[in-house]
């Protein structure tokens, strides 16, 4: 392969503390130079931002088991379209990713599709039942370094504590879906005045906070590594902030829908707005934005949760929770957080790429963009306006709450080890 230079882009690379216009040259699968060189084929990147490829710590690729909603191929294609070079698919597949076999299958499917790297998350307990530990060692042998029963909480404090202890063998991370299910039986949306008026059972904030508090105390006591997924309440943000101040080894993520949408959307009874944990209130959104700004929340992770249209066109009560996220995450971050003055562009890239990679020990992604590093990059046009077309997405499903919305910021190129996975806005075959 000949060398390729992207010239004139604004290079935003938090890992290297860089935010400046520069030329970036790649050759084969590696970055070879960053500076004012113009080697090989020169691609004009004036007006674009060049950053390390985005990393999503929390996606549901649905395969094996729910291929009607998404497959590893379509999901990673959506990731490439969204500027991602690495994603972490969760374990609530069918069969559950609680043994090496499914991990192998997902890795192979991703390799064959070639759209982005996957770092599968293994289950903590067998069948996600919360009772017996899954064979995390066997999965660790395949490189799994994070375990989660996401979708389901680990209800027993004893099991959670054991899991936190056990994975210290590999210095791995436990990620618990924080929901005290005894308080959320039949819950449909955030508990409060609106849920009462709409006649929908409530999911109280306390159910999340109570479990986040439990997990932080358990992790702190053991010096173990904890990751808190999809933070949705102001209370959880504050608990994490205090825990970090105490030195607990915790990282946290928040999804774009939790820093952009409130529960008021539920008045339409359109199940596209149904998600777990639910959309909450203004104060929660403010707290999450503040958490992203001061580093309490390390990463933006989409919790990309595809569901086929017939599932989401049912009565609210019967519809499964979950929203798409991969193809809108970057634009929402730019439109709502950077334009909104909450984060600088550099902080945004850190939240979307550098921090996720670092918190999960994913090497080769998240920067720094320097000679010798794998060429996992994204180039996007921060000014380009575009309208979200639910049917025009790469994902097999259409359940995005942003359908029809105008966003700012479009991915132009995504490169995975030097190969275009998305070129001129189109996913490469």
């Amino acid at each position, binding site marked *: 392969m000949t060398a390729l230079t992207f010239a004139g882009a604004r290079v935003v690379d938090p890992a290297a503390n860089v935010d400046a216009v520069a030329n970036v040259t790649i050759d084969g699968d590696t970055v070879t130079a960053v500076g004012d060189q113009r080697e090989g084929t020169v691609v004009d990147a004036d007006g674009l931002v060049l950053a390390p490829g985005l990393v999503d710590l929390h996606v549901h690729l649905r395969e094996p088991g729910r291929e009607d909603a998404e497959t590893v191929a379509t999901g990673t294609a959506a990731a490439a379209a969204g500027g991602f070079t690495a994603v972490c698919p969760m374990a609530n597949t069918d069969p559950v990713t609680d043994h090496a076999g499914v991990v192998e299958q997902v890795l192979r499917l991703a390799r064959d599709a070639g759209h982005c790297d996957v770092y599968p998350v293994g289950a903590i307990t067998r069948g996600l039942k919360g009772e017996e530990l899954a064979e995390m060692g066997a999965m660790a042998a395949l490189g799994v370094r994070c375990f989660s029963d996401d979708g389901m909480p680990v209800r027993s404090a004893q099991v959670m504590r054991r899991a936190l202890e056990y994975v210290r063998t590999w210095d791995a991370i436990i990620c618990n879906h924080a929901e005290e299910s005894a308080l959320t039986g039949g819950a*449909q949306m955030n*508990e*409060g*005045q609106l*849920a*009462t*008026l*709409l*006649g*929908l*059972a*409530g999911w109280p904030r306390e159910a999340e906070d109570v479990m986040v508090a439990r997990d932080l105390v358990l992790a702190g006591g053991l010096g173990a590594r904890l990751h808190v997924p999809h933070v949705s309440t102001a209370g959880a943000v504050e608990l994490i902030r205090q825990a970090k101040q105490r030195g607990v080894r915790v990282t946290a993520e928040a999804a774009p829908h939790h820093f952009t949408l409130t529960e008021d959307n539920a008045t*339409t*009874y*359109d199940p596209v707005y149904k998600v777990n944990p639910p959309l909450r209130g203004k104060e929660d959104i403010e707290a999450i934005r503040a958490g992203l700004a001061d580093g309490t929340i390390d990463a933006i992770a989409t919790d990309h949760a595809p569901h086929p249209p*017939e*599932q989401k*066109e*049912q*009565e*609210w*009560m*019967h519809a499964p929770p979950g929203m798409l996220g991969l193809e809108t995450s970057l634009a929402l971050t730019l439109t709502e957080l950077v334009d909104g003055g909450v984060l600088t562009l550099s902080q945004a890239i850190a939240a979307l790429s550098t921090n996720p990679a670092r918190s999960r020990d994913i090497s080769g992604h998240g920067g720094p963009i320097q000679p010798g590093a794998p060429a996992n990059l994204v180039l996007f046009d921060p000014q380009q306006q575009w309208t979200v077309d639910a049917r025009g997405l790469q994902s097999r499903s259409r359940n995005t709450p942003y359908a029809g919305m105008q966003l700012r910021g479009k991915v132009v190129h995504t490169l995975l080890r030097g190969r275009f996975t998305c070129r001129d806005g189109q996913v490469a075959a």
Partner: protein
Amino acid sequence: MIDHLLSIEDLTADHITEVLDTAEALKDIALRPIKKVPTLRGRTVCNLFFEDSTRTRISFEIAAKRLSADVINFSAKGSSVSKGEGLKDTALTLQAMGVDAIVVRHSASGAPQQLTQWVDAKVLNAGDGWHQHPTQALLDLFTIREKLGRLDGLRAAVVGDVFHSRVARSLVQGLTTMGAEVTIVGPPTLLPPRVDTWGAAVSYDIDEVVPKTDVLYMLRVQRERMSQQFFPSSREYARLWGIDRDRLGRLPEGAIVMHPGPMNRGVEISADVADAANSVITDQVTNGIAVRMSCLYLMLGGEEVAA
């Protein structure tokens, strides 16, 4: 009049008055030898019941037939995507058949509203989940107005499982819209979150409220709530928040006792009270037909008869 009757919140005081006045004029049709007028001849009303309710369905059916409309009963009990025809497909089928109005009862809150996006027909909510039961509230308001002559300034108490009750939500909103003073009474566990924002007073003490009440509305309390730990036993519930002879005696002169039915005799209402002279429960049932006729009459006007 409004397009769809989904929630009492959509009705202004003027709307409500129009419905009640029209119901009054329609009520005497039941007393004529021929209990029918030709007004809705050629219109088709579909009863789409996803949840069992013989009483409400029959009430709507009689109402439609007395106005000479044709009635189809579509029992979609247990319908869901996994078992076959889901809400959307059922709606599209009815749309293709060209019905003029759909009366829908569903266990999922919001289902009638979701239905409106797929059909041109007028949708009437006959009860959805915990959300609303507008025609029940309207017939209750009609009954109160009939018995006590007015709604404005009346003192009403709504007692019981307000949390899980769509009747309560509709009724409290209807009463406050019409200027009544409402107090909600029950154990804290059966009062929904933020009930303080409903424009009504809240009390846990029925004995304090009863002597100052013109309309005592008792809600049904399901025995299942006991196993869900909302209250410890039916006995304790009846003792603290039920209506019995004693409490009945402490109501002011002329006060009425109401219940949406069916009653749990012995829990929220003792058997002798249920049968007592000042209970208007059977009137509520009779008025239900007139009120539903009124809603159908007001909503199906102004459209060309479906081809």
